């Protein structure tokens, strides 16, 4: 990491460390009840045990699997439908009411009915995640594809590019900044729905463990898993930001 970047992060990191230290003091001094919140050092001990023993891996991969597969499927559907709706008016007229109906619905509310149809296995969880991912990607793709400069499209036409190739090599790259912005929103939603569906189905994964530990009064374990979940969210965002910067390297002209 470059020194300037480290310097920029420093105040925030110091503040975080200060908060953790204050929490440690508050718990030890009896300001916060130990039964509700163990001292951060105790959480850290559990956390390092979980990592050292490798116990963290099973639940972690289980949750990440849901997120990645659901994210990939939902993004694919969102890009395909969004492009179709932007490009082909009949598709827009057909799908627009449905999309506007389902889009504002919190997708968490769809998990119970999906359980009726798909049971409590991975199919249901992945479907839930994919559903949540689809809409932000769809709406952004729709806008992005609609916003593609007519001049670019005409340039493709005058050079003899057919519609399919123009879509793949001109329209989608031009709409990519919009599509990726939608995907960034969806990535956060994917993690939320994955954790929620794990909580509701009780079959393992980070979401299940957080709820299960709370119900078993294993409060330190609950917080340890919570920290792991926070780190997963952080890592996913960092990974996406890196991929996005690579895909949009040509946008550096805006700097």
């Amino acid at each position: 990491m470059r020194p300037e970047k480290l310097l920029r992060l420093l105040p925030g990191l110091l503040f975080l460390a200060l908060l953790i230290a204050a929490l440690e003091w508050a718990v030890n001094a009896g300001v916060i009840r130990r039964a509700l919140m163990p001292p951060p050092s105790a959480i850290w001990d559990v956390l390092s045990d979980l990592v050292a023993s490798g116990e963290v891996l099973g639940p972690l991969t289980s949750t990440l699997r849901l997120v990645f597969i659901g994210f990939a499927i939902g993004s694919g559907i969102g890009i395909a439908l969004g492009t179709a709706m932007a490009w082909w008016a009949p598709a827009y007229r057909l799908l627009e009411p449905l999309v506007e109906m389902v889009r504002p619905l919190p997708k968490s509310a769809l998990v119970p009915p999906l359980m009726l149809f798909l049971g409590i296995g991975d199919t249901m969880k992945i479907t839930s995640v994919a559903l949540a991912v689809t809409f932000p990607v769809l709406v952004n793709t729709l806008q992005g594809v609609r916003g593609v400069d007519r001049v670019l499209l005409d340039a493709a036409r005058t050079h003899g590019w057919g519609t399919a190739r123009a879509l793949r090599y001109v329209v989608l790259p031009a709409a990519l900044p919009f599509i990726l912005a939608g995907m960034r929103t969806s990535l956060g939603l994917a993690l939320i729905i994955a954790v929620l569906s794990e909580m509701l189905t009780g079959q393992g994964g980070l979401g299940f463990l957080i709820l299960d530990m709370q119900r078993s009064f294993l409060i330190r374990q609950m917080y340890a898993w919570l920290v792991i979940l926070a780190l997963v969210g952080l890592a996913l965002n960092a990974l996406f930001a890196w991929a996005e910067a690579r895909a949009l390297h040509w946008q550096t002209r805006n700097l």
Partner: protein
Amino acid sequence: MAILELEAVEKSFPSRGGPAMLAMDRITLSVRDGEFLSILGPSGCGKSTLLQIAAGLMPPTAGTVRVAGRRISAPPPEAVYVFQQYGRSLLPWRTVRDNVAFAVEHRAGVSKGQAREAADIQLAAVGLTGFGDHFPWQLSGGMQQRVALARALAAEPKIMLLDEPFSAVDALTRLDLHRLMLELWEKRGLTVVLVTHDVEEAVALSDRVALLTKRPSTIARIVETGLPRPRDAVEVRETPRFLELRHELLDALLTRHAPGGAHAA
């Protein structure tokens, strides 16, 4: 022999609450194979619309467009359109070389390597050797327009349709591009149709200048420049014939603006 023919081409646009607005009224124009023809007219007279119709990019409301004798309804392989907004017509995510390769890489039997080779040849022809790995936005406006020209050349067209391609660059760069355009036209036996509102540009480059009226536009007249070939885009401006044509066409343009006045268009 005519390579591009417009016959009684009309274009009207729907207007809110009223009858359709007639932008172009029965324009008939025949472009000879190998000539350099300019379409000159005041701003907003629909010159670009006319060129887009000729390119098959926009359907006319009435009338026909023929390229090499065939009636067209989509962009024909013989013609390539070069846009005024070079910055918007290049793909910002592609390097200069890959932007030029865009003209041929989709064709059957052309490999990516061949397309890039073809691109490098055209980049050399427009004086951009060594800029292949740059991105368009790293180049100046004049250089970006050269990239757009190289891309059009890579398609190996018979006809180049130029939509005010030199209007957005500074005066010196414009003269530079004029010279380049004449050189390319002479070397490659192209047919060029140039749309412009710049009288000097039209006269200096063309064999014939078609003068459009303001909306609804029609062709007021067609002037043979009769200037010698090969010619230098700068030196030709000092000849008496050039000055005479400039005077005549400016006069016609300014009068046609009346009674709205000859204010800056």
